């Protein structure tokens, strides 16, 4: 611990954003990094807890007190080594992770957690800038070949770990480029796609063979992989969006959020796409769903100069501040305002859409909504009921359904292989060995877990790699 009394002397001070008017004109990242001396100070606030709750709060178990201390001592190189010992892609999490570590930081008891995420990001950004991060070739190679299907963060992490263990790894991706939701879901202004390319370059340098535009189970049979490879890891994500089965759902202008965001990201990066443009310029936009995807729809719509943006959420408005003593160090349900919200949007809670109304030409014109209220039943379950007479209309030319994802897409690979699924429709497998119901087939990330955070995807990818290694070699030295 750099400074035992740091937290008593120095206030929390985190990265800031460029002003709204400067940032909404483009799709660039707008987070302003902390200066070196600020980072030193912020890192010194870490108390090096006897039980670092952050370390447990972090799904990849980042060894946070250690790298905080090293940043305080200006030893970024070792900090980077420590950071990469648990996290393959800290530049991703350093940008888009909601930072459960900070929620469980002891200093969050007083709402002033250490700026762990910013410190993480600064470490890895420095590491890239200094050229410390290079492909790590295995000292010796095995004669085993592994296919990883799906080049999102889980697949990339898994592929990297396996390659470093000396296996021949082929990473299949149905899209043209790697990254999964990172690339096609998250807007560039939150994370520049060059970061993914750089990592892929590293992976390829480590021997990972990348096969884009290959949709396993569709344009290449999954069974072919089973024949060719000693093990197959399925990391295809949970891409089946939750739909809203209400009248007018099929009107033009009503889209799943990913249709809109994916296209926007392709457009920004210059990647061609076949579908018709989905734009929001000068339009009224309704975003259904109050989560991060919804938020991304808001920010993207702002950048497309939408006329007005409304975001509705069926759940009640969360409290501004959680009951700390009963929740900490767990992740609190509380009101969160994203950078996109700051950029202009009306938010409503306890509202659901009942019908989309046509303008008469098959285009959506407005959404008929209703207020709902939640009560706790005797059995302790929350129950929702519409508030009688509370119906109202929201005018909208574009509706984006951002209500989350239910499970992986079953058609294609999963169906072809006939894999067992869990009760929620995800590929069945546990977090110890990540094995599916089929011999030598493993699954990790959202495909196994259901929709979740990037950081969970990285963890599962890493851990599945360990299990695969152990399966192939009888023992493993890959870390969990």
């Amino acid at each position: 611990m750099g400074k035992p009394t740091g937290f008593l002397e120095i206030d929390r001070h985190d990265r800031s954003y460029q002003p709204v008017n400067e940032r909404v004109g483009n799709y660039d990242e707008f987070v302003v990094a902390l200066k070196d001396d600020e980072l030193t100070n912020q890192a010194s606030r870490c108390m090096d807890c006897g039980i670092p709750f952050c370390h447990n709060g972090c799904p990849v178990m980042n060894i946070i007190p250690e790298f905080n201390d090293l940043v305080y001592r200006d030893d970024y190189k070792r900090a980077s080594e420590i950071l990469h010992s648990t996290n393959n892609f800290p530049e991703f999490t350093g940008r888009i992770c909601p930072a459960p570590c900070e929620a469980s930081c002891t200093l969050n008891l007083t709402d002033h957690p250490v700026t762990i995420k910013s410190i993480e990001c600064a470490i890895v950004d420095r590491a890239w800038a200094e050229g410390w991060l290079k492909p790590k070739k295995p000292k010796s190679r095995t004669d085993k070949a592994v296919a990883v299907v799906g080049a999102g963060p889980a697949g990339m992490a898994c592929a990297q770990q396996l390659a470093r263990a000396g296996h021949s790894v082929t990473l299949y991706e149905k899209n043209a480029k790697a990254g999964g939701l990172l690339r096609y879901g998250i807007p560039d202004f939150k994370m520049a796609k060059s970061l993914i390319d750089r990592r892929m370059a590293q992976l390829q340098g480590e021997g990972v063979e990348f096969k884009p535009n290959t949709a396993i189970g569709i344009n290449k049979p999954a069974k072919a992989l089973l024949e060719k490879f000693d093990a197959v890891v399925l990391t295809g994500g949970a891409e089946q969006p939750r739909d809203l089965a209400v009248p007018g759902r099929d009107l033009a202008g009503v889209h799943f959020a990913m249709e809109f965001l994916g296209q926007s990201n392709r457009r920004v990066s210059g990647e061609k796409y076949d579908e018709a443009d989905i734009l929001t310029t000068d339009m009224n936009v309704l975003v259904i769903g109050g989560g991060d995807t919804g938020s991304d729809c808001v920010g993207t719509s702002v950048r497309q100069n939408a006329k007005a943006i409304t975001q509705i959420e069926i759940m009640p408005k969360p409290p501004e501040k959680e009951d700390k003593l009963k929740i900490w160090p767990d992740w609190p349900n509380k009101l969160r305002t994203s950078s996109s919200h700051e950029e202009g949007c009306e938010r409503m809670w306890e509202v659901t859409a009942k019908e989309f109304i046509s303008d008469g030409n098959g285009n959506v014109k407005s959404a008929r909504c209703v207020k709902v209220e939640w009560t706790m039943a005797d059995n302790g379950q929350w129950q929702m009921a519409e508030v009688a007479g509370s119906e109202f209309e929201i005018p909208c030319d574009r509706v984006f359904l951002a209500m989350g994802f239910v499970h992986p897409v079953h058609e294609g690979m999963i169906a072809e292989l006939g894999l067992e699924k869990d009760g929620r429709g995800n590929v069945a497998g546990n977090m110890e060995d990540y094995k599916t119901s089929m011999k030598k087939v493993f699954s990790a990330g959202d495909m196994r877990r259901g929709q979740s955070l990037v950081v969970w995807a990285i963890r599962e990818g890493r851990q599945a790699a360990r299990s695969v290694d152990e399966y192939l070699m009888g023992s493993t030295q890959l870390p969990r």
Partner: protein
Amino acid sequence: MTIACGLPPRQGLYNPENEHDNCGVGFICNIKNKQSHDIIKKGLQILVNLDHRGAVGADPLAGDGAGIIIQIPHKLLAEECSKLGFDLPEPGDYAVGQVFLPQDNAARARCEKAFETVIEREGQVLLGWRDVPVDNSCLGESVKADEPVVRQIFIGRGEGTPLRGAFERKLFVIRKQAHHAIWDETPEDDHANFYTCSLSTHTIVYKGMVLSGNLAVYYKDLADERAQSALALAHQRFSTNTFPSWELAQPFRYLCHNGEINTVRGNINWMAARKNSMRSEVLGKDLDKLWPLIGDGASDSATFDNALELLVAGGYSLAHAMMMMIPEAWDNNPLMDPKRRAFYEYHAALMEPWDGPAAVCFTDGRQIGATLDRNGLRPARYIVTDDDHVIMGSEVGVLDIPESKIIKKWRLQPGKMFMIDLEQGRIIDDEELKNSLSDSKPYQKWLDATQIRVSELPDDVAPMSPDHETILDMQQAFGYTQEDTKHFILPMATTGQDPIGSMGRDTPIAVLSDKPKMLYDYFKQNFAQVTNPPIDPIREELVMSLVSLIGPRPNLLDPDHAGGQKRLEVRQPVLTNLELEKIRHIENHVDNAFRTYTLDITYRAENGAAGMEAALEKLFAKAEQVVNEGHNIIILSDRGVDGEHVAIPALLATAGVHHHLIRAGLRTDVGLVVETGEARRVHDFCLLAGYGAEAFNPYLALETIADLEGELDGLSLDEAQARYIKGVSKGMLKVFSKMGISTFQSYCGAQIFDAVGLNDDFIARFFTKTASQIGGIGLDEVASETIKRHSDAFGTNPLLQKHLEVGGELAWRHRGETHAWTPETIASLQHAVRKGDRDEYRRYEAAMNRHDKKAMYLRGLFELKGTGKPVALDEVESVDKICKRFATGAMSFGSISWEAHTNLAIAMNQLGGKSNTGEGGEEAVRYEPGPGGENLRSAIKQVASGRFGVTAEYLVNADDIQIKMAQGAKPGEGGQLPGHKVNEWIARVRHSTPGVGLISPPPHHDIYSIEDLAQLIHDLKNINPSARISVKLVSEVGVGTVAAGVSKAHADHVTISGFDGGTGASPLTSTMHAGSPWEIGLAETHQTLVMNRLRGRICVQVDGGLRTARDVVVGALLGADEFGFATAALIAQGCLMMRKCHLNTCPVGIATQNEKLRKLFPGEPAHVVNYFTFLAEEMRKIMAELGFRTVEEMIGRSDCMEMKPAISHWKEQGLDFTRLLTKPVAGPGVAVFNSETQDHGLEKALDNDFIKQARATIDGGKPVRINAKFVNVNRTIGTMLSGEIAKKYGKAGMSDDSIYIDAIGTAGQSLGAWASPGMTIDLKGDANDYVGKGLAGGRIIIRPADESPLKAEDNIIVGNTCLYGATSGEAYFRGVAGERFCVRNSGASAVVEGVGDHGCEYMTGGIVVVLGDTGRNFAAGMSGGVAYVFDANGTFEAHCNMAQVELEPIAAEEEAMQAAGQGGDLEAHGMVDISHDMTRYDAERLRGLIEKHYHYTASSRAKEILDNWDEMRGKFVKVMPVEYRRALLEMQAKTSVAEHEGVVTSVGGQ
């Protein structure tokens, strides 16, 4: 092995080797060797008057043994023998043996025959046998069964033995051989009871399991007027057990020993190791007949006697031998005469000290004397009368000698000897005795010629440190973790201190850990508790020494020309790489006197774990071979480790070679040095030393420092390495001192460890005679762990390519060591108690108890099988009843905040449980209900070694008074509250000064032995007769035996703490490595108490890591009545295990005094109440399932548990809980839980009468004057009376002189303890130890009797440790006081005319005036108050420990008088307000006190000074603590600012 008969054999966890004893001892002699029967009578009378120092067990007629040595009563024996038909020759030409023999006739005949055979073989003459007349009607029933037949054997000098000296030696040879013949070669039934008490031409020993008053009833000889002697040396034993052991009664053949040999295991080993190198001119071939020299399994005192006999037989005089075995502290003593120093330094190579507290009285019938250990840890007072008698005893006043006849009263001082030569007819004092011995040989010349210091060897070249990658591989091969560099090596290299941490250990013991643990982790450091004191290695550095002698030891039995053998000395045993090279190449440097051989302890890694055994055997054989080839230094080296070579653990190699060489009798022919990459933490080095390494070179730790060069805070590498070595040395001293051991030499090979989790075969083979209670792993597993580390290091594990393993022992880490307290368990417990959510609580328990999956604790491997008859839940006793058995742990206000402290108290009071003050006092406001009617008073008042805030008022407001002997997290250590935590508030409660750090000494300075503890228990019972007196112990092997002693010392309650208890701050060495799991200690305690029939009268509490209902149930089944929780209760109220208590930065306002942080305290009483309620509810469920309706039914039902059949972990295979789970067999009517009460004997106290006489006064009447006569058996006088006052008047007490006790005589121990204001005790006579202990406002005056001819200022008037922990009041002693005067005084003022060593130690307040000489180490650790010392000769500075104080002259009075209106303070009976400026006005203050001294005692010394004040003032020196002055000046500045701003701040101690 020969265990003393009478002691039961090893069973369960009970092991007779753990028995301890302490005692009362005394002698009387006629200097002119005039024999009389009266001397014997008086000798016996001494015993009777020391009765309270002995103990009585379950059987009131069975004491622990008593005995007496007298000169052979020739007249009696000659007459009796001639009646038997044989005549005795002249005295000196025959010997009499006092022999215990079996009752069985045939067996007895065989024993006698064996004896006779040896006599004949040795050419001596059997004169005859005599039955010693005894009357066994006075024996207790429990003793009669073991009563031997006592016979005397008479042996005449053979014709071939012309000299009397040779005859004595022959007797020794005969006795040894007879003993071996009978003990080793006959069936057990035969030798049971066979024992030779004495066999001598001059002395005879009468002893037995007899109450001291009955000795002359039992042995009719002693009552026979014809029995005459010029000396009588008597002993009364206080043993920790109640088993009858006739032979362990003392005296032994030459001595009585009051004390304990802490290093006895090492001493025995070293004696055995000398077999090959020992030759004796005088004994010649007879020497070979003596082996084994030491009867293993006898008591430490008996062992000591064996060694002493050998030395005397080998030609040393008694005094010379005693000086070798119990040397003074010579190493760090600049005041010692160089010749004497040379004597000691020379003998250091001959014999390692027998270290431990000791008052030894010895006699060979012609001389009688006594010596005291270097620390002076036992009392020994003597008087000389005008009719040539000397009487010495543990106490003064043991015989009623008229004061007018006494011409000298003095004491034996630390390290000093005192002897009366009856043949010369005179007293020989220490100075003369030792000077003549020091002068007798040219020791300095011998030393100069033979002693080589490593530092003086010519320079050499050490290898360069390798590159980072190589170091990393080596570190990994030796199991380094990131914590080793971050928490140990780096802090030690930068600060030179063993690092500090906080909170307890909650990781699995090594044998249950998944991690490959170092072999070091399987050993737990032993520590002193109760039967001997730990030492303070910092404040009492003068007795400590790290000097190590490497290499062959000279022949022990060659006192005359041993000057030829070279010896190699190092100042301390941690060698730099350079020093090691010097030793490696020494052959070329020092005349070929030394030849070093480096033994490689690595072997080829491809041989794997299975290869280690062969490698060890090869190593041992090679070691033996190189010694036989003439090498005399072996370096065991693991420098050869690389990818292909794996090292045998250095500890295993060291201990193995050490024991192998001992067995081969070669050990003292060679020095053992270890060159290892493995050792790095203090604990590691202690183990290497403890198992025989004389020096070590931790090359990898030193290279690690080189590798960390960028992080050394700008220090040079040399400096950083030097600091690291210093840190190791200091840490080692601390570990030694925990066991009360002062020197490296005696620690070396002493094996002061318990093994936890190593199997018996492994221990017996490599760590011979180390205690190990639960079995565990053996060589195969140790080897596997080593191989695992090695392959990790040189393998391809990606995590280890650039980094060490995380470790995770000190702080929880992913991939690190498992902890009980994790983010999950803490969060779920806190959420449960805050929400009042039982289901969440159950989740917490489930997470905690995940023992079936992963056993973290021994109890995790227990299967609760119950009685087989479950009961309905509603039949189980209520939560309320269960909660009464709960207590929270001792945490002081100071270490934790007011909020946290009171919250626990309120909660526990609501529950009907008990909270504990900890050692910080308690504010009187807490005795009144709080604003909401809540009860803030802590039911348990702790009395710890610092005695902070321990006032009469505090003690009378207690339900339980707990004496903290040791603390789980840091047993054997003191504590320190850093100055930044001592704010005004805390200072007020603790009677100290804000901003000045407070030290709690490692020992209680009034408990150096079991009888001292009995005394403190008696003292506390007097001040508050309705409170239970509790003693807190820490689990280690032998704790059960200590607990038995505690029960015999009349404690009502005993706490057994596990090693995993918490702490606010402790060296990590202690937190991690001292003490054992509570399961072991508790089981041993319960078993031993039941076996001794002592269980019923004491309540047993367990604490240290109790967390769940299951833990509590296991505790009850293993024998606990009550249960303590500290960490869990803290966590319930918000603690997050930050482990930052020592930094004052606790972010939840618990372990901090920072006001900003205190506001963040999240706890409420309800949280704690919820925790215990939930826990009790869960307990009820388990009880119902197991079939118990009450906790009482469960206690001690270890038969309701068994070891889990399915063992999940490879290391658990060898664990064996049979001994742990043994249910002791209780005879009919023997209680197995606390159901009886102790007999404290308070009805005998004089105070009962005082209270009667003072009742009206206390109730508001007029002052009263009480006349009394004291004798030494009247102990703790005035204390019960003070309790009555404190109950009624609190701290303020009564007005001055309300109760005036006017007394004559000799007061027993603890006169006036905790005397309250309004009491004056005015004694004409003298007093024993602990006068004014805890003085709380009263006044004590002691002056010589009117008829005494003594010059008061040259004679001792009060004993040791007076005014210990006094908080206010006054004392005037006209005479000299013993050692440790005013230790930890925090407010009393005292005037005395001389003090012994360590005066004013740890003092934090008050005023001490010494009108005479002081001993050494004055003012050590003194952080407050002032002392004025009359330094007539200008020698005071050399006697003063200047670490924390400065000496100042006494300023002239004119200056002082300017401060008008200040004089009145001195009228306030010692209640000197510290805001009154102690930085000035000294002359006035001093003079005022001396005037009062004269007024009260008529002191001629005082008068002389006052009469010549102007001249005398200049001879006074003021001792002023530096920090105290700084704090006072700061307070003054603050006060003046506050006044300026119109703000009132209260400061000061009142």
